[in-house]
């Protein structure tokens, strides 16, 4: 019996030692294989420096804005290289300024938050009376595309003209867009259609590419879009015209220009002008220009915008500036 007791006792002692070894083994190895992690003493009393106010304009920076003819993200992607190239040519740091609407961009221009901008014809016309902007250059689009306002509808719909649009949902891009709002407003109004009652609803999509998508997806029955944006979309997706159709096209207007702040130094303005106009002279420049559908830039001619200015006057008379 004693032998049995001593045997069991030895067994228990052995097992206890094994258990301790196992625990120690796991503890040591767990500790060993746990990588050292930094300890961060979170001190809420320490303040992280605030972001600098970008409204101030460092002297070596060119604040270049682009109107959101495309969506904000697409605009950034498409025009980043152009801005980088121009700023490099003039020897300044680029600061890409974007705003979510034509109106907010116009205000930024008027407030002096922007040095140069690639705007739609609408914001140019809107800002022109303030005297705070000047024309710099204007684009010549590839394939000699002209700047129109076009109304599109789904290709499978029974909408063939503006007369078929009664009671439908109309899509527009931006309240200050020339081709995406002013031109169709004047056209409908002068054609005798009260834009507030003729349509079931008017939806502002924010940009011309979103307007095209809204037509494709049937969110709107028809929409007014920038013709160059439409051509660009067709180049990217040749099958687009299988899904949409153009039911109306406006007269030709002056293209969206590059404008600069009126108080910009002439030397800088001249440098910018020269940079734009000469960009197409090298391979890199041509690639940048072709990616945004531009063949080259030409010196701006104010006369090219007379028709647009004239339509704007009609727009105001028809109450468009107070709409929507």
């Amino acid at each position, binding site marked *: 019996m004693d032998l049995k007791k001593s045997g069991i006792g030895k067994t228990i002692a052995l097992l206890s030692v094994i258990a301790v070894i196992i625990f120690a083994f796991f503890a040591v190895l767990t500790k060993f294989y746990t990588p050292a992690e930094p300890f961060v003493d979170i001190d*809420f009393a320490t303040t992280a420096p605030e*972001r600098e106010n970008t409204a101030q304009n460092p002297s070596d920076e060119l604040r270049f804005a682009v109107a959101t003819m495309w969506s904000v993200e697409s605009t950034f992607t498409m025009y980043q290289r152009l801005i980088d190239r121009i700023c490099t040519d003039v020897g300044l740091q680029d600061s890409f300024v974007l705003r979510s609407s034509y109106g907010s961009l116009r205000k930024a221009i008027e407030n002096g938050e922007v040095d140069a901008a690639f705007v739609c014809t609408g914001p140019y016309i809107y800002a022109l009376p303030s005297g705070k902007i000047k024309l710099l250059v204007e684009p010549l689009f590839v394939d000699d595309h002209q700047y129109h306002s076009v109304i599109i509808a789904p290709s499978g719909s029974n909408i063939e003209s503006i007369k078929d649009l009664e009671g439908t949902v109309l899509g527009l891009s931006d309240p200050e867009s020339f081709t995406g709002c002013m031109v169709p407003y004047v056209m409908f109004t002068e054609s005798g259609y009260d834009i507030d009652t003729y349509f079931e609803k008017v939806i502002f999509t924010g940009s011309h590419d979103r307007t095209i998508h809204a037509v494709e997806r049937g969110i709107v029955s028809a929409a007014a879009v920038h013709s160059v944006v439409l051509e660009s979309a067709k180049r990217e997706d040749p099958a687009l015209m299988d899904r949409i159709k153009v039911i109306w096209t406006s007269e030709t207007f002056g293209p969206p220009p590059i404008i600069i702040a009126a108080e910009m130094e002439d030397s800088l303005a001249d440098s910018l002008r020269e940079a734009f106009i000469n960009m197409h002279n090298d391979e890199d420049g041509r690639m940048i220009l072709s990616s945004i559908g531009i063949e080259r830039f030409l010196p701006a001619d104010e006369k090219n915008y007379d028709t647009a200015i004239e339509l704007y006057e009609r727009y105001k008379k028809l109450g468009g500036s107070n709409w929507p």
Partner: protein
Amino acid sequence: MRVGLITLLIIFLPIGLHFIFSVKVSAEKSLFDRGHNLASSIAAQTVDKLLVGDKLSLLDIIENLSGTDEDVLYVCLTDPNGDVIVHTYSVTFPENLKNVLNENDEPMKLYRTFQGAVMNVSVPVMSGQLGTVNVGLSRNESIAASRHLAIILVLGLVSGLFIIVIGARFITLKVSRPLNSLEQTVSHFSPYGSRTDWPEIKGTREVSSLADGFREMVCRLDALEHERKITEAHMVHTERLAALGELAAGLTHEIRNPLDGMLECVRYLESNPDNEAFKEKYLPMIRNGLQRINDVMRHMLTYARSGSETNSDACPTYELIDSLELMLKGKIEANNIHLTKKESLKCICYCNKHETLQASLNLVLNAIDAVKENEAPEIDVEIRCDPNWVYLTVEDNGPGIYELNREKVFEPFFTTKPGDEGTGLGLAISRQLMRAVGGDLELSAEPKKLSGASFIIRIPRVLEEECCNA
């Protein structure tokens, strides 16, 4: 058992450790995936707002989405320079944390705070051109789960070891030890041992039953061994009597011849009762004849009654030769056999005299049977020695042993004698008797002199000094 335990530890410890670390890595990956999905969603929704600098909308987005996961400690957006644009801390963004986030571009950073372990997941916005979304998640729960699992695993391993050791101990007590004890007892089994000292072996029911079975088998073996010995002794005695039977004819001759001579002497004395010269001549002859008969009868009786003594002792070889000659003389003369005996050296052998005499007698009787039909029957008995052995050779000029029978002659019940003349046990018993004293009985490959068979008895030699000292 030790080897088993060590093997178990070597196998299961790495497996357990790998399992624990796999769980830990899996938990971390799961947490990272949650953080990455949240950060990616925020990054996708904040592009436009970042581009237009709409901080309020950015704040709304990160605050709304950070509430979708209870492990989220904070969300912050940094610009490409690492400066914080918006964050979800209720007060200012911790500078120490900003330094940690800007250390490198790793998508996952691990660090610890007073509140526990934290994982920061970073997702760039538009490939980092607009900045980075950082989501901080608490790792306390995943670490606690890993620790819990580790404890369970270790406890399970230890419990398993306990069970294995206890089980092994139980098996040892109930099976291995009783089997070892049984094995040792069986290995030390001796036919001459006492059965009362067979150890009591207790174990499982099967082991106890096995031990009982062994005990019964040993008892049966004992009984069989006892019967075998009795049978063997009976066979030896029978063979001895058979030999005596063969000697009976010679015995008659050995008694009749002296009696004839003594009767003739008595006749002479009766016819000349007063002749002193006749008395001096014939009385000794009568005495010698009676002495001779007495010797023969004494030898025969001694031989017939032998078998009860089993002790071996030193025995001079001449005693063997003389006894052989005395017992066989009648039979040899009756068959006109020429017997030659030779003793090259007088030596002493260690044997049971009567059993050795029986074996020798058997050989000579077989030789006599073999040469009976010869025209000039001859038997040669020779004793020679070397330092270790005494060799008694019986050789005849009979037909010899057929090659096919050479291996069989020592087999029990094998005989070449016709009918029921032989039992077939003589050579088998003779060999057994010689081997019992450490010697042997062999059939020589070739006869040395005569053309028949040659058998050799080999028995241990005792040197004279040893014999005397003993």
